[in-house]
């Protein structure tokens, strides 16, 4: 297997295990305060691996719980955008005509919005919570995938095995799901993996701006926010969540790039 994929997947599996078994991995209660002078803003130590924040909470434990937020936002948002992108892109590419024109105009409109500000606006209206963040990221990030799927469908529907299925009276739905979709998935996997990293970044940015996961629930983004006021003398508050975001996004990008290389027909030996 590709080294990049192996590395990326290893990191993601570790993070996923941390997220699932957060209560066992965390050394402290992530919400437990210690407002005493010596308890606040402690540097990293064997007792507090990543130090404590301005309210004396253990940063390591907060980040362990924050992993849940980041990963679930990443996966669920991308899942939503994949479902929409696959469906609209598939319909658009397969049926063509006015359906295609309509869907492509919607996609162009989506491209015209600065997505991040659109997300910020919607979240402001709907209220900032984790579910809204996932749904809104999903609902605003399907346009690229939709175009990709449409392009795949456009080429695949002219392949002889699709013609043959039509001649034999196979229904449109079966042609779409049995014949075209499985052959269109390779670039979709690549794109989806890369978008997971993007979605995690968006969630972190939203939480950083106070529009994502609300305090006291920990997320990497809002730990960063809390840390920004103390950046001069409590570096660990911004350093560790920043590194966590970096490594996670990097891992997803490595998997995506690795997959692209692996699935590229020009680079793989069997057609």
């Amino acid at each position: 297997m590709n080294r990049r994929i192996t590395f990326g997947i290893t990191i993601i599996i570790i993070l996923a295990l941390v997220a699932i078994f957060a209560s066992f991995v965390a050394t402290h209660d992530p919400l437990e305060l210690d407002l005493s002078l010596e308890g606040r803003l402690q540097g990293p130590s064997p007792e507090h691996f990543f130090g404590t924040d301005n309210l004396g909470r253990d940063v390591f434990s907060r980040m362990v719980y924050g992993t849940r937020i980041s990963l679930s936002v990443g996966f669920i948002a991308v899942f939503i955008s994949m479902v929409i992108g696959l469906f609209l892109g598939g319909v658009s590419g397969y049926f063509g005509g006015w359906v295609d024109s309509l869907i492509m105009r919607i996609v162009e409109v989506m491209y015209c919005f600065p997505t991040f500000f659109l997300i910020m606006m919607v979240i402001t209206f709907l209220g900032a919570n984790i579910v809204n963040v996932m749904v809104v990221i999903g609902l605003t990030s399907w346009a690229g995938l939709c175009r990709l799927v449409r392009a795949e469908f456009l080429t695949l529907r002219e392949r002889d095995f699709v013609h043959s299925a039509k001649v034999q009276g196979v229904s449109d739905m079966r042609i779409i799901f049995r014949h075209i979709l499985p052959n269109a998935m390779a670039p979709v996997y690549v794109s989806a993996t890369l978008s997971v990293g993007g979605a995690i970044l968006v969630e972190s940015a939203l939480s950083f701006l106070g529009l994502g996961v609300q305090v006291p629930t920990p997320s990497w983004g809002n730990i960063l926010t809390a840390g920004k006021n103390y950046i001069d003398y409590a570096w660990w508050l911004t350093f560790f969540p920043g590194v966590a975001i970096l490594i996670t996004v990097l891992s997803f990008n490595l998997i995506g790039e690795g997959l692209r290389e692996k699935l590229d027909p020009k680079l793989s030996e069997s057609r």
Partner: protein
Amino acid sequence: MIELKNVKKYFHPRRGIFSSDGDSVKAVDGVSFTVPRGKTFGLVGESGCGKSTIAKLIVGILEPDSGEIKCQGNTDIVFQDPFSSLNPRMTIGDIVGEPLFISGQKRNEIKAGVKRMLSVVKLRSAECIDKYPHQFSGGERQRIAIARSLVRKPHILVLDEPVSSLDVSIQAGILNLLKDIQEEMYLTYVFITHDLRVAEFMSDAMGVMKEGTLVEVASPREIYSSPKDGYTRQLLDSIPKL
């Protein structure tokens, strides 16, 4: 039997806001021929003359602009490129059995039907049924494509350059197989090729196509011995002498 009456199919360049209207391409421009049941009609001509468009019209992938196409019984088609005519993500059993599956047959009936068809094309079904297309050679893939086209028991089979992408050493095997199948199942063939020798070997009657029209229809012997049209003579002269 198949009957085509003055069939026309023009392709129009897509008109958009930013493009001017182009001339339409007369892919098929008034073609008529009849193939009696159990016979083979060989359609020859250089690439781009509209042969494949006729194939697609007969099996209904395309609709004619005007004219009439009458086919008695089911039609099916075998394409030129056995690499793009088999879904790479389906097993041979699923590919050949799909028409049976969608017609609602039971699993054991499908399996029996698939086995029968694979034995007709002389493939060992036990070895093939769970494999994927990329595990086969070009010739084997073309046999699989033929098996799939036969599984619905069609009366008419359109063969669109079925051996053109295969090695010469394999071509004869496929051609003989097609002849045997025709005899056994009493099939009507429309055999499209650019290779006059292949057409002569297969056909009861031959049609020579040029720029969307049939310039000559005759038996292979007549075409070879006394070609009437200048274009037919040109094609004959282009056969390399061995």
